[in-house]
């Protein structure tokens, strides 16, 4: 069955450093991969989408890469700030149905 894995351990980094989160998937060849941010007690919020024919996508301090050979996406936050502290979820789009498969999420803690 399709499976997505994110590092379940929390990532703790110092303010100003670059945070890198990993998303690995198996048994699937998605056309799209998305990243969401979720704050405690709230619903996820869409951040970025990357298509299978795109190697890299940027939005302000965020950068996402997509390696379909390794079946992996990396999510980078440069110049991280305490306000970036949250749980980040990756999600694969299932075909063209609009349905998503979510990873478990990785919690990022940025210390001042």
């Amino acid at each position: 069955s399709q499976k997505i894995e994110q590092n379940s351990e929390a990532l703790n980094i110092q303010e100003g450093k670059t945070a890198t989160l990993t998303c690995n998937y198996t048994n699937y060849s998605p056309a799209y991969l998305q990243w969401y941010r979720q704050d405690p007690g709230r619903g996820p919020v869409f951040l970025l989408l990357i298509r299978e024919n795109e190697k890299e996508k940027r939005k302000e301090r965020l950068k996402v890469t997509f390696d379909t050979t390794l079946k992996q996406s990396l999510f980078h936050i440069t110049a991280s700030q305490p306000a970036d502290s949250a749980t980040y979820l990756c999600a694969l789009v299932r075909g063209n149905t609009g349905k998503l498969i979510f990873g478990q999420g990785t919690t990022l803690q940025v210390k001042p």
Partner: protein
Amino acid sequence: DVKVTQSSRYLVKRTGEKVFLECVQDMDHENMFWYRQDPGLGLRLIYFSYDVKMKEKGDIPEGYSVSREKKERFSLILESASTNQTSMYLCASSSPSSASSYEQYFGPGTRLTVT
């Protein structure tokens, strides 16, 4: 500003009760989704609706049903609540077009406790 609202933020129900969770979106989206989120398990799809009166089972539909009588409203029903249905329930909507990037908009969630 786009919005998905859910009827309750917190809900406490007894085992065996029938529970209704309501979700309303104001974006005229065709697709609507119900998920539950549990620690260590992530977000899991319960049911999906791609149009009024149309529904499709997700990955964990057992013990749940849904209703979509109007485009903007999608209801999740627990016919007979059980303690293993204690969870955070999240509703989402999206446009079916790939041009939208399949971005899903989520509600704030309902934390349901079944005692």
